């Protein structure tokens, strides 16, 4: 379907030209503040839709179906405040990518696996280091070569850790692989949920899912997953940067991946159960991918147990990969793991549903907060943050596209979207379009010419992840700051990428 192109501009005041409304199909998103656009409830919507975007980003939203998905999510039973979309919003399946929805648990509010996604607990991990860009340049080939060999990725099997660890990983997450010799004890303090999701039940994970995960513990996967070597290029908040362990000029390592086939299969299994269960609970949804059940129901309980177990696989997966990255650096520099100084800055998920307490109409209310391609962003003082991050707020990791910058943000106290922020740049171009523009080898050559070493899982697939296939991450970070979703801490510039 091609949406009609209507984009009205009105002059407000003597000098400011602001777009007051953007029409997407028959929907009107009205600007209610600098970077917030609201769709008033209509039809079965019980709350408004609210998109955080600049005018430029809103123009991109208009070109696809994500705004329609924001309206669909606003129809979920028990949803409170609004169906939110972060500035990296784009067309997903069921939920938009960048979607945030909180449902009132005690008012029959629902949980939807589509609001978490197939890649349960997909997330981002950032490691600091004692290295500078000059250090990296001296050992660039050795580091990239070691990472190329030690990071399993792309199509097919390959994992760092043995499948025999999976049963324990399902209940204990990162702690289980730590006991098996991967990572450092101090890492757990800097993981969201300490790297272990509570309430996990391994029995809620199918044999199919365990079989898929058995050969993938410690692997990146493909698509938009990556391990990137970056330099802290700009520090915007020296106090927070220091608390996070970052400093200008520091070499850092960012990795993005999730629960692999185990998570994908778990979502598939749970969606199969939820379809028939919906009619028993008197629920209907405008898209089957939004299938849902009350949080307080046997099926809801089962999903939460399965989701937590799959999340534990994801925490452990990133833990194992980070350990392997440390080994690659240590070997390249001929030093011990500890001497690399590759401490964990933070590990944060962007595909999860969580039971959290938030203020609704002046009352603390238990909510099921779905973040589908959105990052939790607790502000300063939140009790769930580690002691040393209480004064700054939670680190929020926003990777850019391959070849462009990434951002470290921090949570703020006045976040209006249930303490959520963006999770990346957000795609703007389909994979097919991207491949038609330039072949993978050209994309690689251009990145290499810019000083970014590239080790792709497949040279052909590199084309799909070209920088122009994504939105401008600087704009996404800017809207996060202007919309009080999160504040800027540091900008990171890539110097090497190991691509899934």
């Amino acid at each position, binding site marked *: 379907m091609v949406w009609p192109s209507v984009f009205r501009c009105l002059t407000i005041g003597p000098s400011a030209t602001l777009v007051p409304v953007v029409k997407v199909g028959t929907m009107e998103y009205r600007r209610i503040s600098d970077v917030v656009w609201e769709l008033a409830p209509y039809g079965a919507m019980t709350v408004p839709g609210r998109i955080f975007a600049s005018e430029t980003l809103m123009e991109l939203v208009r070109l696809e179906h994500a705004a329609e998905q924001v309206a669909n999510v606003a129809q979920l039973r028990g949803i409170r405040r609004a169906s939110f979309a972060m500035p990296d919003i784009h067309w997903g399946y*069921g939920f938009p990518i960048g979607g945030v929805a909180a449902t009132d648990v005690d008012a029959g509010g629902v949980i939807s696996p589509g609001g978490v996604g197939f890649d349960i607990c997909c997330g981002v991990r950032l490691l600091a280091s004692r290295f500078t860009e000059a250090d990296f340049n001296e050992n660039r080939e050795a580091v990239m070569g070691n990472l190329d060999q030690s990071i399993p990725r792309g199509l097919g099997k390959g994992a760092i850790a043995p499948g025999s660890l999976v049963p324990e990983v399902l209940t204990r997450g990162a702690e289980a692989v730590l006991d098996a010799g991967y990572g450092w004890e101090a890492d757990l303090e800097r993981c969201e949920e300490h790297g272990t999701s509570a309430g996990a039940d391994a029995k809620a994970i199918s044999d199919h899912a365990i079989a*898929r995960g058995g050969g993938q513990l410690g692997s990146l996967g493909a698509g938009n997953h990556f391990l990137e070597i970056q330099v802290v290029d700009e520090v915007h908040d020296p106090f927070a940067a220091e608390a996070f362990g970052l400093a200008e000029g520091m070499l850092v390592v960012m990795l993005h991946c999730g629960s692999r086939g185990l998570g994908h299969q778990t979502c598939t299994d749970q969606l199969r159960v939820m379809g028939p269960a919906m009619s028993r609970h008197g629920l209907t949804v405008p898209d089957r991918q939004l299938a849902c059940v009350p949080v307080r129901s046997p099926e809801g309980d089962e999903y939460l147990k399965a989701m937590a177990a799959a999340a534990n696989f994801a925490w452990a997966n990133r833990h194992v990969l980070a350990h392997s990255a440390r080994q690659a650096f240590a070997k390249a520099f001929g030093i011990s793991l500890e001497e690399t100084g590759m401490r964990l800055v933070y590990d944060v998920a962007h595909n999860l549903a969580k039971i959290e307490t938030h203020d609704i109409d002046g009352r603390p209310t238990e909510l099921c907060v779905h973040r589908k391609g959105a990052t939790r962003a607790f502000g300063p003082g939140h009790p769930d943050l580690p002691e040393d991050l209480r004064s700054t707020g939670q680190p929020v990791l926003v990777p850019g596209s391959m070849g462009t910058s990434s951002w470290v943000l921090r949570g703020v106290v006045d976040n209006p979207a249930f303490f959520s922020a963006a999770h990346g740049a957000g795609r703007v171009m389909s994979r097919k*379009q991207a491949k038609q523009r330039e072949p993978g080898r050209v994309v690689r050559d251009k990145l290499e010419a810019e000083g970014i070493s590239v080790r792709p899982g497949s040279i052909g697939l590199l084309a799909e992840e070209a920088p122009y296939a994504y939105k401008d991450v600087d704009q996404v970070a800017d809207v996060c700051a202007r919309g009080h979703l999160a504040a800027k801490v540091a900008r990171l510039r890539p110097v090497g990428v190991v691509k899934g």
Partner: protein
Amino acid sequence: MPYRVLSHTADTGIEATGDSLASLINELAMGMFSLVATIEPSAVERWTTVRVESPTPEDLVVDTLSELVYLSEIEDLVFCTFRVDLSPGALSVTLEAGGVPVAAIEPSGPPIKAVTYHRLVVEEREDGWYGRVYFDV
């Protein structure tokens, strides 16, 4: 129309038609794996069998394709040719899938993570069966 790739910002879809539900499933399966690699049927090295029973044609399509995604990952194969047998009067399918080891192919797209219900259509029309499925990649 055998099958056609549908554009999606982050993921990918396939739409297809078939004389029967069995031929539609065959086309959708071929379309799904065509997103991963282009393989000549003559290159098939191994066969595997899938049996699926579902309550509706929509579910049968999603469940069968999901089972193929699972088997592809477990057996480290990319499938390219299929023999679909639909039990008469029942929504039960036996499908033989022929494929090539992952190590032997050059991927043309990322692996399929999962089969979604997003904008799913499986319906019998006057001129045969039509299906539309989006995949998480």
